[in-house]
C-alpha cells in the first residue's frame, strides 16, 4: 500500500450483517439493563438523583471503561462478531472464551475466517443459553442446594475452575495444528520472551496483574506479534497450508502473492 493512499476495506455481507445485529442487540441490552432498576425504583419510590448515581458510579466507571476497551482490543480478534453477544451475556473469561476455543478445535476450522466466526457464534450463543437455564434452576432450587453448594469440597473445587478449564484448552491452543488443516511449526518459540515478561510483571504485583488482565493481554499481543514476525521472516516459524507439499516460511515464501489472491478469492 502506497504512502498517503487510504486503504479501502471490503467487508463481506455476512460480517456487515453480524456487526449490525450485534450493535442492535447491544443497544437493546443496555435499555433492558437500565429498565430493571428504573422500574424497581419507580415502583418503590426510591429513585436516586442522577447526581448521586454519577458521584457514586464515577470510581467504578474510571476502572471499568479502560478495562472494557482493553478487553475489546484483546478478545475481539478471537471472538469475532460474537463479541457483542458475549459481552451482553457476560462471563467472557470463564465461559465464552473457552467456548470459542473449544468450538474452533471441535469444528476444526481456521481461526479468523467466516466459518470460525459462525461456529464461535453458535458456541457462544448455546453456552449463554445453557448458563441462563442452569442459573435459573439454581435460583429455584437455591434453598435445598445451598448446603451442598456451600460445602467445603464444592467451594474449593469451584475456586479451581479456571486452571481446570484452561489445562484442557491450552493443549489445543499450543498445538501445531491450528485448524482448517493449517500446520504452524515452532510458533511457541515466539512466546518465550512474552512469558518471561508476564512472569516478572506478576511477581512485581500479583494483585494488579490479576485485576488488569485485559491490559496484560494488550501488552503481550504486540510483543508476541513482532517476535513471531521476525521468526517467520527468518524461517524459524513455518506454515503448511492445505495442499502444500512442504512447510513454508516467510523467508522462502515467493508465492505469497498468489496465496493472497487465492485467499481474497
Amino acid at each position, binding site marked *: 500500500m502506497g504512502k498517503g493512499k487510504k486503504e479501502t476495506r471490503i467487508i463481506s455481507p455476512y460480517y456487515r450483517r453480524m456487526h449490525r445485529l450485534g450493535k442492535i442487540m447491544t443497544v437493546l441490552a443496555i435499555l433492558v439493563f437500565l429498565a430493571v*432498576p428504573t422500574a424497581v425504583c419507580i415502583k418503590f419510590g426510591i429513585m436516586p438523583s442522577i447526581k448521586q448515581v454519577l458521584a457514586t458510579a464515577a470510581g467504578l466507571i474510571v476502572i471499568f471503561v479502560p478495562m472494557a476497551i482493553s478487553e475489546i482490543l484483546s478478545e475481539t480478534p478471537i471472538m469475532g462478531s460474537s463479541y457483542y453477544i458475549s459481552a451482553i451475556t457476560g462471563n467472557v473469561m470463564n465461559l465464552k472464551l473457552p467456548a470459542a476455543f473449544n468450538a474452533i478445535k471441535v469444528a476444526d476450522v481456521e481461526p479468523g475466517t467466516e466459518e470460525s466466526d459462525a461456529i464461535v457464534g453458535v458456541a457462544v450463543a448455546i453456552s449463554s443459553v445453557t448458563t441462563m437455564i442452569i442459573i435459573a434452576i439454581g435460583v429455584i432450587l437455591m434453598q435445598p442446594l445451598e448446603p451442598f453448594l456451600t460445602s467445603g469440597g464444592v467451594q474449593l*473445587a469451584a475456586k479451581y475452575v479456571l486452571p*481446570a478449564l484452561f489445562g484442557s484448552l491450552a493443549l489445543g491452543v499450543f498445538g501445531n495444528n491450528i485448524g482448517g488443516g493449517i500446520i504452524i511449526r515452532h510458533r511457541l518459540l515466539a512466546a518465550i520472551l512474552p512469558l518471561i515478561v508476564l512472569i516478572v510483571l506478576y511477581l512485581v504485583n500479583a494483585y494488579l496483574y490479576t485485576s488488569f488482565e485485559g491490559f496484560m493481554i494488550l501488552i503481550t499481543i504486540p510483543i508476541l506479534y513482532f517476535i513471531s514476525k521476525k521468526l517467520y521472516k527468518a524461517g524459524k516459524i513455518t506454515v503448511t497450508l492445505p495442499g502444500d507439499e512442504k512447510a513454508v516460511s516467510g523467508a522462502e515464501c515467493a508465492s505469497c502473492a498468489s496465496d493472497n489472491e487465492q485467499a481474497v478469492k
Partner: protein
Amino acid sequence: MSYFDVANSGFIYICVGIGLIIVLAAALYYLKICYSHALECGIEKSRIVEVMRSSVYFSIVPSIAIIIGLISLSTIIGVPYSWFRLSVIGSVTYEIMAANMAFSAIGVNASTATAETFGVVMFVMCLGITTGLIFNTFLVEKVHMGTTSMKNKDKRWGSVVSTVFMTSLILVLLVPIILSGSVSILTFVTSMLISVILTIIARKTGAGWMSSFTLAVSLIIAMASSILWTQLFS
C-alpha cells in the same frame, strides 16, 4: 420497607424474569443466524451439532460455580438482582467488587443500608459495566475487520497472526495458574493429562463422538482433583 424487603421483593423477580427472557430470545435468534451461516459455509451439520453438544456439556460446571458466587452476592444485593447480574453482562468477581464499591462510596454496608440505598446500588452497578458496552458499538467492528484484513493480505502470515491473539490470552491466564501455588498448577496439569488421554482413546477407538465430552470430563475430573491436591500439598 427495609433494604432487603425491596431487594428480595416479588416485583424485582418479575422485572428480572422479563429482562432475562428478552436476552434469552436475543441469544436464541443469534444462534439461529450463526447456525444457518455455518451450514452455508459448508460445515457439516453433524460437526455443528457436536460443537453445540460440547458447548452445553462444558458450560454446565462453570455455571454451577456461578451459582456459588450468586449465593455470596445475594447476601449483599438480594437474590433476584444477583440472578440478573450473573445471568447477563457480569461475572462474580466484578459484581461483588462493584456492589462493595457502591456501598463504600455511599458509606454504608448491607446491614445498615436503606431501601433508597438499594436504588443507588442497582443503578451504580448497572452504569459501571454498561458504560463499557457503549464502546462495543463503535470499536468492535473496527478491531475485528482490522485483524481480518491483516489475514487476507498474506494467508500464511495471516494464519500465524490469528494464533497470536489466542496465544497471548492463554499466556496471560497461564502465569497466575503457574505461580499461584502447587494446587493450581496440579489442577491445570491434571486437566491437560485427562484431555490427552481422552484424545488418544478417541483416536485409537475411532470414537469421534468423544470429542464433545473431552473438555467437560477434563474439567470435572481436574476440579475434583483439586480437593486431593489441596489435602496432599496445602
